[in-house]
């Protein structure tokens, strides 16, 4: 099972990084979604894999999944929605302010002013 999870995490990471490199915003949003999946899964499996033993307390049960990474990831999933929403709204605003949907910006060229 570990191998399957590792493959899934690896594939999500690779696709996420690749999409984040593109010059339009929408693919970057998708890439970040995929990267979020990868990251959440990665943090989650830091608690190691335990099958069929959810961390719901019962008298006498000794085998259970680590609840801490689950709690960390739960809020992360919800926050990742907030991030995606903010990003697409920024993209829409930029699209209608600047007329183009681009993830890149003009490079910095002007020289800094230094008071001597």
């Amino acid at each position, binding site marked *: 099972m570990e191998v399957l999870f590792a493959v899934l995490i690896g594939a999500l990471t690779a696709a996420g990084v690749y999409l984040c490199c593109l010059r339009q915003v929408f693919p970057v949003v998708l890439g970040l979604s995929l990267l979020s999946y990868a990251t959440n899964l990665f943090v989650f499996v830091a608690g190691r894999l335990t099958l069929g033993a959810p961390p719901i307390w019962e008298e006498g049960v000794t085998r259970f999944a680590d609840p*801490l990474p689950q709690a960390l990831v739960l809020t992360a999933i919800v926050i990742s929605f907030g991030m995606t929403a903010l990003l697409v709204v920024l993209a829409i605003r930029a699209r209608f302010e600047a007329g183009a949907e681009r993830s890149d910006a003009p490079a910095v060229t002007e020289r800094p002013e230094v008071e001597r």
Partner: protein
Amino acid sequence: MGASAIVALPLLGAILPPLFARAGRTPALLAALTPSLAALALLWGQGAAVFSGEPVVALAPWVPSLGLEWALRIDGLGFFFASLILAIGVLIFIYSRGYLAGNESLGTFYAYLLLFQGAMLGVVLADNLLLLPVFWELTSLSSFLLIGFWRHLQDGRRGARLALAITGAGGLALLAGLILLGEVAGTYRISELAARREVILAAPLAPVILALILLGAFTKSAQFPFHFWLPHAMAAPTPVSAYLHSATMVKAGLYLLARLWPVFGQTDAWDAWVTGVGAATMLLGAVIAFFKDDLKALLAYSTVSHLGLVTMLLGLGSPTAVFAAMLHILMHATFKAALFMNTGIVDHETGSRDLRRLGGLAKVMPGTAGLGTLAALSMAGVPPLNGFVSKEEMLAEALAIRWGDGWLLWAIVVLATIFSAAYAFRYFSALFFGPLRLPEGRRAHDPPALLWGPPLALVVAVVVLGLWPGLAEPLLVAASASAAGSGRAWPELALWHGFGAPLVVSVAAFVCGAALVWRYPALSRRALAWALPLDGRRMFFAAQTGLARGAHCLVVRLHSGVLGRYVLLLTGVSLVALALGWGMGEGWRPQRPPTPVNGLAVIFVAIALVAIGLVLRWHQERLRAVLLTGAVGLVVSLAFLHASAPDLALTQIAVEAVTTVLLLLTLFFLPQHDAASLPKPRGAAVVAVLAGLVVGLLAWVMMRNEAPTLADYFWSRSVPEGGGSNVVNVILVDFRGYDTYGEITVLGIAGLVIYALLQGMQEGVARKNLHAWRFPFALSATRHPLPFAVTARVMLPFLLTAVVYVFLRGHNAPGGGFIAALLVTLAFLIQYMASGLSWTMQRLRLDAHLWIGMGLLVAGATGMAAMVFGAPFLRSAHGEVPVPGIGPVALASAMGFDLGVLLTVFGAVTLALVQLAFLGRLAGFAPNRTPMDPVRPRPSSEGG
């Protein structure tokens, strides 16, 4: 208690003057004087104890794990410096009231001065190696504010920056040195260091510690080669120059040297460096001062020279030299502060402080001339003034060195004494005597009492301490004893010491000095010819410009503006770091047995991989890409479910649904891109594949590795302490409730930011572009199909019931606030999709802002409620509540917190989605008034 109040009074009192300044300038002065005088009274109230050798101590823990504590200690040395700081401060405050013009912000000025005063008191009273640098940096900061007080002057801004950079850098070195010292000594108490002298000196790090500490002291006390910031600090208003840059702050370095004298004093490295740097500074300052025409520059370099003199004394290695150092600190503070104030008066009355434009002022300002002449004569070391007493002691100490060891020192000291006499003579003779010279159209006269009162008080001290130096003996003995050890014989202070080498040098210095002043015109022309090429200030600004240029080059390289390059750079660097870490690690073999593979899992992962591949293939065809990403998310939630995380699976599914709706809404404004894809950064594919391989491998290694976990802790405490058996939920609302509180706040803020961003599109360019926006594809003829609308309405009560159920059971079974919030959002989203925005908004009056605020309030109030019962924020209580008809029901106060989570998350998500949908209106997308209406032609366009 007393010690803490002495430091705290000026620091807290700094608030008062700006407030009282509204009532006028004199109230501001009184507001500044009150805390200082109170602190002075408190300090002198401790005098008896201090003089009997009983230090007054105040102790409170601050960060015990670091060794940082609020430790103040008034011993003789601290008492001596604190008295100087407060007493001269009082005079400076009075003087400033007369000096600053009526339209200048006197309240702010006093606030800065009090801030400095408190910080400086902290420096000299701190008994902790980590507390001292805190105050040390505060003095640098307040000095920065005061030098740059006249913000409109470029010189002021430059001088302030220069001073901050030099003393700030020295402060960092000092901090490093003091931390090392504390670690080596095994104690951060300064008063305990002397007893560990042997341990400290034997440590291999001892030379490094000494170098770092000396760097801090030398930069602060303007020692060569860091002396150049001090003359530029003279751009400050004159009271600041008198107070910070001659009487007190620049003595902080000397204080530190004296304080650490018992630890490092009388060692070869200390003696060589401290004496050498001090003597060099003393001579250099005196020579430059002689050739300065600007009165403040003359005094600044003179201060540099006198600071060098004291430094040299602290390096001579004998306790009596320490005594002479203390003596000179006192004497110098009196006559130099008086001289600065005197210069301020001249500047104030004549509008100039340039010796080439001024002369013979004794005719028009006799009082000022009298005070200035007396103070300058004291600076020259002429009897019977106090400068003579301390100079004699200094000469006696320096000349006590054997000729064979010290001939160079002798020569430097004698030369420096000659130039000191020379610039002091020049100060008063050129300024006050000879023919009257004033700048065009100026008339000068003696100033009002506010300006001459404070220097008069100082000059009285100059004369009294000259005639009866024994008056200061107890104070100086107490100070020297805490630096160099008690129980020894100290020199008897007297005006007349009989004939001896020091007197001979003094008389020779007066004669040579007078000759130098007589020959000044010829000398100054020659001096200008070989003016020192080593200009520290120029080097500093060259370095500053160089750094700015270098940074610019780097920024241009790194900030290409292409997101992809940043991503690649960050990923690449992380990969390299990982590879390095991997290479340094030891061999590894799996420790945990693999978990069995399930056939269904293989199929689902295969589906996910195909979906990921298709997203990459079709990222331009956005509708498909969104749906495929959703499919990947579903597999991820199944993975959570399979690996025993039902809460995560539920959350992921709900978020997936909401995100898909969000992205579909977005597609209306960011539809498929027809243009061929823009160029990708090179190497994207390679780096991405590498990242995938490495992260996957890392995940696999981690999963097969054993490591200690906190799982048992939460598992065993969840029911007894949190009152819930769903451990994940209990962690969220109880154990890590603070964290959750922060997260929902972030989400709420994100919602509000989205609202603000979209509201901003109702005007300007965005509004115009939005109005002109045409969705490039055909829209469906039936936006709101009848069966969907009807089903949605029937489903609503059931969905809401399910939400209540999921929420209530969350503490003991999968569910809870987050999941319930997402489900209730979905329940309403379905109505929006089925019946349209207007229809739903007319019936569902949801003010999402209100929900966010309410949620945060409810969550916060639940946390506070715990504090009412004396428990920490967010500690939950739980128990069984009997409900009639149902029986006992287990309840935990954390449920209230979870309700807050529900409301906030619901509010934030709804706000984002509804606002986005609302944007369609601005684009001229006709609202529907009835459900199930067909698309009507838009009023502004010819067709659909």
